[in-house]
């Protein structure tokens, strides 16, 4: 008896756990496992495109998301008044047309006829009014609430946006906003369903049953940390033009696993590549480098000695060999940065870039480095620290999640040593790092900024006094005034002049040391056609075709 019991219990302990847990079966049985990233189209089976854009998203609520991969997932299920085409140019989405008043302050959008949500409910202008006001409500807690500040009523918490009738939406702006149509293509500007959100709260964006959108595709399955399956939305106005029947976003988080899946053809798109693999992929025609609107830079704490001295800041900035960092650490075609507003941002004449017109503040050509370094040494002398004498040991802070940050920190340490100064390196885990940097408890720190839209103000607004992203703790009355004027200016020429002037001040004061302009790397199979990436890094698969 006892023996039997022993066996029974031992079995219970070992195997019993299994039996209880194997009840839940995996539901995606129509998905490919070992095939070529798509299911072969025959009579009954749908064409499925398997792609990777990122790991499991925290949220796919258009108001709450602030991640690039989250945005890709949202733009497949939702569509704003406008959307972006292959070249990043806004084209009509849910709106059929827009009338802009002569002063550029009033936008009257006319929605397409017969628009519905994916569940068949009619979509009206009122849905936009609700969504936009929800996004700016502090209770919603949207990171991107400030994207609406160009609309009147933002400060009062009630946007001046009116649904005149079911198909007409009138928007009044504070000042002429040349990039406003582009904003309406931004995921945060998507309409959302009032009835659903009021009933389900934040959980509405978690389940396919309540995640009702108006975009080209609809979410049909989400297994967190596994995959999200989207299906063509047969109610979408441009249904006929859509690509694959289904898109499966595989939610992988390990870069090597992503690469493995891409190499074996299990996915046709990989939005991640281990840094050490870049060299071996560089010559492949499936390897893509796109410019990204962003800048990797170094923050100085301008309120604390010795970096309260702008001569020291400028010397530290000039001593950086940006080409070395880009070629030996970044390795992915990043551009050495001689200014803060990144390349790819348009100037007042949209055929010219802001960077072309403004030029560089630091000569980043290879030949100029020796000269820059000499100038840096002079500046240190001027500041009273000839050959680094009397200069305290300072600390450079970075976060260790990416090897690149550490390698850059070590390179900077060497470069600054040429000024005769000793720089210690300190790393802090991401969340702690953010906290320390935000509170200004640092001397020099790694930093980076990605723009939200194609306008220089997206880079310049953050340096005003007291801004949450002004990690340098810098304050300059003239700068604040310029930015306020830019935001209220209706004259585009004057607006851009002032933005150039504002950037001049940033560098006259050497508030930061730019290192390089970001790039977006991805692998895309030759079989995949008509998929594209926007300058903000969002990926568009809705019109993709899979070649055999």
């Amino acid at each position, binding site marked *: 008896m006892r023996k039997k019991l*022993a066996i029974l*219990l031992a079995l219970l302990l070992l195997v019993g756990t299994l039996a209880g*847990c194997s009840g839940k079966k995996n539901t995606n049985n129509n998905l490919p496992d070992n095939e070529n990233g798509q299911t072969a189209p025959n009579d009954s089976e749908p064409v499925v495109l398997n792609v990777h854009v990122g790991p499991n998203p925290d949220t796919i609520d258009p108001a709450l998301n602030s991640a690039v991969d989250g945005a890709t997932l949202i733009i497949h299920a939702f569509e704003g008044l406008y959307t972006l085409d292959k070249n990043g140019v806004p084209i009509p989405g849910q709106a059929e047309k827009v009338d802009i008043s002569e002063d550029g302050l009033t936008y009257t959008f006319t929605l397409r006829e017969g628009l519905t949500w994916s569940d068949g409910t009619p979509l009206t202008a009122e849905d936009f009014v609700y969504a936009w006001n929800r996004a700016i409500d502090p209770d919603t807690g949207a990171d991107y609430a400030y994207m609406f500040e160009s609309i009147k009523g933002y400060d009062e918490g009630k946007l001046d946006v009116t649904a005149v009738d079911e198909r007409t939406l009138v928007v009044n702006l504070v000042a002429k906003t040349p990039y406003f149509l582009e904003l309406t293509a931004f995921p945060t500007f998507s309409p959302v369903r009032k009835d659903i959100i009021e009933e389900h709260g934040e959980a509405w964006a978690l389940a396919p049953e309540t995640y009702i959108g108006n975009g080209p595709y609809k979410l049909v399955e989400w297994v967190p*940390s596994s995959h999200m399956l989207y299906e063509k939305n047969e109610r979408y106005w441009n249904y006929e033009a859509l690509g694959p029947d289904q898109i499966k976003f595989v939610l992988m988080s390990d870069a090597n696993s992503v690469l*493995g899946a891409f190499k074996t053809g299990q996915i046709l798109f990989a939005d991640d590549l281990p840094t050490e693999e870049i060299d071996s992929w560089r010559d492949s025609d499936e390897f893509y480098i796109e410019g990204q609107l962003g800048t990797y830079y170094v923050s100085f704490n301008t309120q604390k000695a010795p970096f309260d001295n702008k001569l020291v800041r400028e010397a530290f900035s000039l001593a950086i060999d940006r080409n070395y960092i880009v070629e030996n650490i970044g390795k992915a075609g990043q551009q050495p940065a001689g200014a803060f507003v990144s390349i790819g941002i348009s100037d007042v004449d949209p055929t010219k870039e802001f960077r072309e017109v403004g030029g560089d503040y630091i000569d980043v050509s290879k030949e100029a480095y020796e000269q820059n370094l000499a100038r840096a040494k002079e500046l240190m002398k001027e500041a009273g620290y000839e050959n680094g004498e009397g200069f305290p040991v300072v600390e450079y802070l970075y976060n260790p999640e990416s090897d690149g940050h550490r390698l850059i920190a070590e390179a900077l340490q060497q470069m600054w040593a040429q000024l005769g100064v000793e720089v210690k390196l300190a790393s802090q885990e991401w*969340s702690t790092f953010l906290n320390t940097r935000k509170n200004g408890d640092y001397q020099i720190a790694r930093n980076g900024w990605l723009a939200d839209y194609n306008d220089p103000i997206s880079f310049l607004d953050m340096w005003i006094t007291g801004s949450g992203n002004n990690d340098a703790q810098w304050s300059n009355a003239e700068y604040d005034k310029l930015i306020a004027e830019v935001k209220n200016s209706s004259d585009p020429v004057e607006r851009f002049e002032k933005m150039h002037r504002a950037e001049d001040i940033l560098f006259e004061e050497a508030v930061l040391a730019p290192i390089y302009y970001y790039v977006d790397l991805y692998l895309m199979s030759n079989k995949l056609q008509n998929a594209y990436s926007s300058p903000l890094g969002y990926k568009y698969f809705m019109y993709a075709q899979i070649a055999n």
Partner: protein
Amino acid sequence: MLKYFVKRAVLAVITIWIVATLTFFLMFLVPGGPFLAEKAPSPATLAALEAKYGLDQPLHIQYKNYMLRLLQGDLGTSLKQRGREVNDIIFTRLPVSAKVGGMAIVVAVVFGVFFGSIAALNRGKWLDNLIVFLSTCGIAIPSFVVSTLLLYFFGVKLEILPTFGLNTTSSYIMPVFALAFYPMSYISRLMRSCMLDVLGQDYMRTARAKGLSQMKALFKHALRNAILPVVTYLGPLLAYALTGSFIVETIFTIPGLGDSFISSITGRDYPLIMGTTIFLAFLIVTMNLLVDIVYKVIDPRINLR
């Protein structure tokens, strides 16, 4: 026996309460917060969010509220995966981890005990040396190396196994092996040394002397005595294996619970940190209790008091 149970249950509750309390206060000592991001939210947004989730209240009030909710089985809502219940995260992901982890444990125990015994019976011979060599490798090589090598050879080079997900039976092979390799090696070493110990005991000689066959003596006397330390090791192992491995689940894209333990901490997702920690503590306490009972059954000389 019943008295013993009651005593253990009370101790378990106290243990879990201490773990919960310590975790609660320690996690708030760590700098950073759930709503920090590269792009800082506005002060108004931050304040509204903190008020919404009760993070603006004094710590002792938050603690009291949390404990009251915990008593009702409510672990709260994730602060990062907005709108998702912690209960929901744990109980949809646990089955996935438990299935893979459970398989790994069966593999580890069956093969570990088997190889350990074989090694002991062949002490000093080539088979013993081979098993000792392999099990030393198993203990020394971290799981991310094992996983990456498996993925590279079987997934990418040979293309005989799928590299991600759990869509087919074959997709279980690599993650199960990656998870089982370490405990299997550990168990085989443990088993080998215990078996050697037991084989040298007088009662084994007696068993053989009274005419029992080698096999019968092994199964009836040796294995039963030698396996006790393995059972002890099994308690905590079960708790960890069932809740998943961050590394193996990340590499093979398995939607298990493993990454919640890590991501909750790096993201300062307080309710999820509490939920996963309390749940793990509960499992460990339960498994240890279960192990004690199995102990008693295997070896009647042990007295449960």
